[in-house]
C-alpha cells in the first residue's frame, strides 16, 4: 500500500498548480478550471485518508465536494455571462471601475 505521505505530496502539487493557474490566468473559464484542480487536490487527500483510516466519511466528503464544484461552476458561468454582457470580454482583470 502506498503511504499517505505520497498522496499528500501529490495533492499538494496539484493544489499548487491550481493556485498558479488562479494567479496567472486571466480567462474566467481557465480560472474556473484551476479552482477545480484545487478542489480535486482536496478530494485526493479525502479519499486517500479515508482509505488510510479505514473510515468512509472522507469519500462521502469528496462526493459533496464534487457536487459543490458543479454548483459553483453553474453560478460561476452565470456570473461570467453577466460580466461578458457588460464588458464584452471574459478577462477577469478587465473590470476595474471600482478600486481604492
Amino acid at each position, binding site marked *: 500500500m502506498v503511504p499517505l505521505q505520497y498522496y499528500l505530496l501529490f495533492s499538494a502539487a496539484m493544489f499548487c498548480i491550481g*493556485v498558479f493557474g*488562479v*494567479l496567472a490566468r*486571466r480567462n474566467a473559464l481557465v480560472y474556473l478550471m484551476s479552482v477545480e484542480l484545487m478542489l480535486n487536490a482536496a478530494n485526493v487527500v479525502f479519499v486517500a485518508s479515508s482509505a488510510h483510516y479505514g473510515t468512509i466519511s472522507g469519500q462521502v466528503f469528496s462526493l459533496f465536494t464534487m457536487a459543490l464544484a458543479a454548483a459553483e461552476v453553474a453560478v460561476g458561468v452565470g456570473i461570467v455571462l453577466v460580466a461578458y454582457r457588460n464588458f464584452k470580454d471574459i478577462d*477577469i*482583470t478587465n*473590470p*476595474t*471601475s*471600482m*478600486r*481604492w
Partner: protein
Amino acid sequence: MADVTTAVTAIPLVPFAAFLVALLVGHYKPAALPKGGALAGIAATAVSLALSVWAFLTVGAGGATLSRVWTWVPAANDSFALTFGVLVDPLSALMVVIVSGVSLLVHVFSLGYMNDEGEGGLPRYYAGLGLFTASMLAFALASNLLQAFVFFELVGFCSWWLIGHWFREPGPASAAKKAFLVTRFGDYFLLVGLVGVLGTFGTAAFAGDASFPALAHAALEGEASVNTFGVDPATWFTTLGLLILGGVIGKSAQFPLQTWLPDAMEGPTPVSALIHAATMVAAGVYLVARLYGFYALTPTVLTVIALVGGFTALFAATMALVKREIKQVLAYSTISQYGYIMLGLGSGGYVAGVFHLLTHATFKALLFLGAGAVIIAMHHDEDMWKMGGLKERMPTVYWAFLSGSLALAGIVPFAGFWSKDAVLHHALTVGLGGQPLVLLAYLMGLVAVAFTGFYTFRMVFLTFHGEPRSETARDAGPASANMRVPVAILGVLAAVVGLVNVDPLKGVVGEHLLFLERWLNGPLPGLAGPTAEHYHELVVDVAGFHTVAVSPTVSAVVSLVVALAGVALAWTWYNVPEPSEKTDVLGPTKTLLYNNYYQDEFQTWLATGVVEPLADAVDVFDASVVDGVVNGVSSTSLVASDRLRRVQTGVVTTYTTQLVLGLVVLLLIVLLLGGWF
C-alpha cells in the same frame, strides 16, 4: 402587602404621564388641554399623593421594602451591575408624602397664580412641574446613588426650565443659567464621588446587607476589604463623603454655593415654593439623610456638615435683614433654614434634621404661596416698602402667613419651634460633649435664631400691618379661592405639624408621643444592614460624637427667648403706622449686606481673574501638546489611508495574489510556531 411595591413604582410614573400629556397635547392640540395641563397635573399629583400615603401606611405597619426594578447594565467580567430600584423605608415614604403633597397644593395654587392671570406658555409650565414632580419622587425613592444622581440632575434641569419660564426677559433667563451652572458645579463633585463609591465598593446601593454604607462599616471594623486605592479606609471614606457633599452644598444652596437661590426667585412664585423652598433644595439634605449610615462613620465630614450648616444659617440670616423684596427675604431665610437642617444632621441628629426638613417644607411652601398671593394683589410689585396694611384686605392670607411666620421664627407651639430646637439641642449636647467645632456651629445657629425672628416679623409687619404705602396696596383685593385654599391648608399644617415630635418636652411627655422619632427609628424587619435605628450607635461608636445631658426644655427656653428678642425688636421698629428703614444703625455693614457680602462680585472675579488665566494656560498646553499629538495621529492616519487604499487596485488578480501571499505568511507563522523548521 406585596403589591404596594408595584404601586410605589407608579408614584413617579403618574406625574411623568402628566408631563407627557402637557407636553404633547400642549404642542399638537393645545385647545384640547383643559387649563393648560393643570388638571392633568392636579389629578396626577393627587394619585401620587394617595399612593404615597398608602406606602407611608404600609411602612408604618413594618413593611419597608427594597426592590430592584431594572438592571440597566448587567455585571460582566467581575465588575458590578448598574441597577435602578425602589427603596421604601420611613425616610423615603415621608419624603414622597411631602413632595407629592406640596406639589398638589402648588398645582392648585398655580391655577390662581398662572391661569387666572392669563400667563402664556401654560402647557410648558405644567409640563415642567410634572417632570419635576416625577423626577423628585423618583429621586426620593431611589435605591442607589447612581439612580439618585440621575434624578438629582433631572430636578436641576427642571429647575432651570421653570426659573426661565419667562425666558424672554433677561432676568429669568440669566437666573436660570446661573442656577443650573452653580448647582452643576457642586454636582461634578457628586459625580466624582459616585464613581469613587462604585469603584470602591462595587455597589452604590443605599440599603441592605450589601449596601455601601454597610460595606464601609464592615471595612472600618476590619471585617471586609474594599478597594480604597491604597489609602487608609477612614481617610478614603472621608474623601468620598466630602465629594458627595459637594453636590449637597450646591443643591441645598449652602455656603459657598448659595448664590443661585436668591436669583432663582425670578421664576414664578409657585415654582419658588415647590422647587426652591420645599422640595428640590431639600434634595441635597435628603441625600445626606439617605446616606446617613455612611456619614455617621466619618466624624470629619459630620463636623464639616455641622459647620457649613451653622455658618450658612447665620450668614444667610444676616443678608435677609435688609432686603426690600418679600421673595428675597424668603429666599435668604430658605438658605438659612437649610443651614439648620445641615447643622442637625452634622451633629448626629438624624431625626432632628429630618424633622426640620418636614416642618420647613410645610411652612416655607406656605410663606412662598402667601407671598405669591400678595404679589398678585400687588400686581407683581415685590417691594415691601410699597405694601403695608394688607391685613384687612386679604385676611385669610394674613392669618395663614402669620402662622407660617411664627413657625419660621420658632415661636411655641408652631412647627418651627419644635424642630429648630431639636436641632439646636442636639448640636448643643454634642458640642459640649467634646466637639468644639460643633459647639461653634451651635452658637452661630443660636445667634441666627434672633435674626430669624427679626427679619420674619419685619416682613410680616411691613407687608400686612400699618398703613398702605402705595396706590396698589390701597386697592389690593382678596386672593382668589384657588390661592386661598392651599394657603389655608398649609397655614393649619404649619401650626400643628410640629406636634409630631415634641422634642423639647421629651422629659415631660414620655417617649411614646415622639411620633416622628419612633417612626424614623423603628425597627425595620424588611431591611437588612444599618437602618435608622443604628445611626445613633454609629455616630457615638464610630464617629465618636459623645453627648452630655442638657435638659431639652432649658435649651428650648433659651432659643425661644432669643427668638422673641428678635421679634420684639421688629415689633418696636416696624409695627408702627409709619415705619422707617432703620438700616442706618448698621453703619457701613448695611452696604455690605445689601450687596450680599459681594459674593457675586467675588465669584465673578474668581472666574475671570483666576480661572480664566489658568484656563488660558491649559489651553496653550492643549493646543500645542495635546492637539499636536492628536493631529499627528490623525494626519498620519490620513496619509496612511491614502497609501493603504491603493492596495485595492481594482484588478482582481492582484487580490488573489495578495490573498495567497497572506495565507503563505500565516502558514509560515504557524508552522514556525509549531516547530516545523
